[in-house]
């Protein structure tokens, strides 16, 4: 089973939409796919799958049973938490629970080809434990073409570089509308430049549209052909200033 993470430490960039859309697209290609909603405090996967109406978590003696939804298998903390309650579980407890969700034998998944995980918008313990516990095959990092989102995308790339979790792709999401009009202060090309800088194997832009299925089909097709890469920490430019300073110091007259 390959585990794919949908990630960004920035909120509102479309991680959940990408996770669900990608899982559905991979399933359309004939694979058995599960979705694990790791957004512990604000789980939204069930909303996009139209199964949010009830507390439908179910366990058996052996473990937690994922919910079958249109050919996918799904688990979300939304199946436990009462709707509209603010989840105030402390970070240490939440992190412990997320680690359990990713541990073998807690959720009784059927025989899956892919598990797509939606992660919360944070770099705190929950995401760290997800990166460390999931044995992820790779991640998709999602960004908006905006200066604010770009800054968080750099931070996200840094996190993945540090944790040495491989990355499949960088997506520039909802950068323009269906007529090609820009929606943010940067362009898809600005985000693509990050993919080039970090030598990511795949970059894709997804427009702001209601009909996302063809775009996720395109993403799934490309992803299945892609080998994720582990990021090298980007090298800082050699300090020309320091070198000059050292040279100057060498040339200073010695005190007598």
């Amino acid at each position, binding site marked *: 089973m390959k585990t794919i993470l949908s990630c960004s430490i920035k909120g509102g960039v479309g991680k959940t939409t990408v996770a669900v859309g990608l899982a559905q697209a991979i399933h359309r290609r004939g694979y058995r796919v599960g979705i694990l909603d790791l957004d512990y405090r604000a789980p939204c996967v069930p909303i996009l799958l139209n199964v949010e109406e009830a507390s439908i978590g179910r366990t058996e003696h052996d473990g937690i049973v994922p919910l079958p939804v249109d050919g996918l298998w799904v688990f979300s903390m939304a199946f436990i938490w009462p709707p509209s309650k603010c989840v105030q579980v402390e970070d240490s407890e939440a992190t412990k*629970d997320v680690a359990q969700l990713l541990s073998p034998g807690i959720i009784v998944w059927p025989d899956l080809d892919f598990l797509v995980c939606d992660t919360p918008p944070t770099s705190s313990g929950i995401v760290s434990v997800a990166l460390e516990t999931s044995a992820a095959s790779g991640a998709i990092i999602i960004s908006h073409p905006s200066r604010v989102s770009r800054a968080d995308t750099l931070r996200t790339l840094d996190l993945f570089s540090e944790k040495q979790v491989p990355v499949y792709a960088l997506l520039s999401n909802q950068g323009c509308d269906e007529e090609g009009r820009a929606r943010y202060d940067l362009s898809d090309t600005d985000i693509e430049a990050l993919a080039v800088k970090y030598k990511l194997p795949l970059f894709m832009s997804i427009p702001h549209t209601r009909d996302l299925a063809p775009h996720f089909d395109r993403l799934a097709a490309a992803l299945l052909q892609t080998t994720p890469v582990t990021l090298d920490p980007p090298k800082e430019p050699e300090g020309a200033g320091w070198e000059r300073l050292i040279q100057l110091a060498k040339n200073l007259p010695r005190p007598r």
Partner: protein
Amino acid sequence: MGTTDSASQESAETEVEAGKIEELTSLLRALSTVLDAFNGLASAVEQQAAEGRRCILAVTGLKHHPRQAFFFEVKGYKIQIVDPFTNYTTYIEAPIDSVIRVLKGIWDGREDAFSAEWSRGQAQIRGTRSLHDGMQFNEGFKRVARGIKQYRALTA
């Protein structure tokens, strides 16, 4: 603060705690009576689902009451105080106010009585399978609350 002040504060705290414990035990007594009747009505599947489910909720934070923690179990349609024992499947700690809110919620037929307290970070579930165990505990409470709601609807 003088010795007398300190003693009277302690006495007031003891009284408040005793009141809460009394409220807790009467809630449990009331629920036990109703749920004993329910248990006879449980289907074979529901009885089977309860098999091997020994969930304990330890009431924490009691400063003055001689017993620092209560243990009780939810088993099928039953909620009952039990002696402390080690042979359990689930171990949850929660403050007495939180436990009272859960039991009152169940008494009112609210299926989210436990998960609401859990989401507020009040119930601390221990163990390597704590999430699974918490969900099982939640299912037990939901079943009980649903039973009470149905019973109320029938007798209204």
